């Protein structure tokens, strides 16, 4: 049965996060509602996701169940890690945990054990800063991801299939990305094909479409392209969706169109929670 491989230190899996960092990511979500720039929210969600991935692998030390690649595209294409991880491709999660670019103080409510909450100042790690510059060289970013995954799959032919999470707010400016996205989704391990999930975030007030199982209601060719680049969610990921209060149909694709900030957060939650750690 595909997507059943155990994730262990001897057989880790990887996540590839591809972030649109083009100029339009400086716009706010939802046609001006609120003050959240897409680039700021995306950087925050990615930092939270990396934080959570590190904690999932932490016992007293960090165990390398996962490796993570963080790619950005805009005025530059390549590693989006800041600080001492800058320029690195696939990074073991222990290095992600050890080397954030900086730690900032945040206020957090934590359980007091008796059903209440107390406020504490906690250190929060930052790996990626918001960027919004240049055009949208999506194809170049997908080429970069392909190259990283080819090497990963040569070294880990039996791992739980890697998950690619791609976030964009606009059409590619360096060609049609469909074949490149489908090419990644066609790569595989003995446990199944690589999973490619695409989340389109929007400055418009257009209706969002989340995890469709067909392209009938998609508004334009760009949406259809992203749909066709997106993998069908395996049952494990649909179960995670259900735990988050989201009923996902059989055949649902890992694809969101016109997503807002809330949708973006859930997209990462669903995409990064395979449960079979050992």
């Amino acid at each position, binding site marked *: 049965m595909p997507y059943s491989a155990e994730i262990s230190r001897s057989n880790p899996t990887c996540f590839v996060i591809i972030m649109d960092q083009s100029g339009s990511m400086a716009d706010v979500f939802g046609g001006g509602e609120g003050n959240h720039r897409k680039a700021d929210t995306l950087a925050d969600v990615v930092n939270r996701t990396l934080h959570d991935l590190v904690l999932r692998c932490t016992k007293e030390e960090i165990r390398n169940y996962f490796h993570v690649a963080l790619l950005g595209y805009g005025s530059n294409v390549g590693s989006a890690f800041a600080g001492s991880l800058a320029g690195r491709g696939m990074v073991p999660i222990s290095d992600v945990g050890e080397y954030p670019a900086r730690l900032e103080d945040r206020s957090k409510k934590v359980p007091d054990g008796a059903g209440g909450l107390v406020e504490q100042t*906690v250190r929060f790690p930052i790996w990626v800063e918001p960027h919004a510059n240049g055009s949208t060289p999506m194809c170049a970013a997908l080429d970069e991801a392909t190259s990283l995954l080819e090497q990963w799959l040569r070294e880990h032919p039996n791992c739980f299939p890697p998950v690619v999470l791609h976030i964009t707010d606009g059409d590619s400016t360096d060609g049609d990305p469909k074949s490149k996205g489908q090419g990644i989704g066609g790569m595989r391990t003995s446990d199944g094909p690589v999973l490619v999930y695409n989340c389109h975030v929007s400055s418009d007030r257009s209706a969002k479409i989340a995890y469709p199982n067909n392209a009938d209601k998609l508004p334009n060719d760009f949406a259809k392209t992203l749909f066709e680049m997106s993998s069908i969610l395996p049952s494990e990921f649909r179960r995670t969706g259900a735990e988050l209060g989201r009923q996902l149909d059989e055949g649902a694709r890992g694809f969101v169109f016109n997503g807002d900030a809330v949708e973006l957060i859930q997209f990462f939650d669903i995409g990064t929670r395979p449960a079979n750690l050992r």
Partner: protein
Amino acid sequence: MSECEDAIGVNLAALRFAVTDGATEAYGARRWARYLATAWVSKDACEADDAAYAEGIGILARRFETRQPTGPTPWYVEAKARQGSFAALLGLSIAPAAQHWSWEAIAIGDCSLVHLLSEGTQASFPIDDPREFGSHPAEIGTTHFSREFLAPILRREAGVLCTGDVLLLMTDAIAQWYLEHCKTDKMRAGEFDETLLSGPSAFERLVGREREAGRLRNDDVAVLRIGVDPVEEVSPRRTR
């Protein structure tokens, strides 16, 4: 073995026994699992009623937290410790009596008790269907121990022990395997019992073989076998 996050507690004098299963993704899970097992058999966390049990767990959780590493700690250790630790528990106490001895058990989560009756039937608690084992069992947390939290997930059961009976206390993976392969197959159940009586090496071989065949999940396993011999003395045997 050093990374095993299952634990066993045995107090022969008090006839109290426990198996616990530390949550895979939790901080200090092995230590918390041991705390819970030790507390059960030493009566530090008492089963008298839900409120008393919650109070005992609260004291234990504070003791767990005060024994965290001191000095500068990496952000991830600090954050993980803040999330707390979690474990499932099966606790058993046996009470001698002139005629038949009795047992009482509590369970939080999916560690399971199988009672093999000398007459050949068997009963299991709290799970009797292998399909009920999931990846999100109820657990006792160092940050979740109030009576309101524990009461809905704490299960209780009691029974009578007769000469020739056997009690098996098992953590989830091996309990699921047992219910799937031995519950309705007397020959297989007998072979499993023989394996337990043969000692740890035989048990390790069985676990390796069943994992290799894909019948047993690759998870930590702990089994505690308690047999009632013909003179009604309870002899615990520990196998991991």
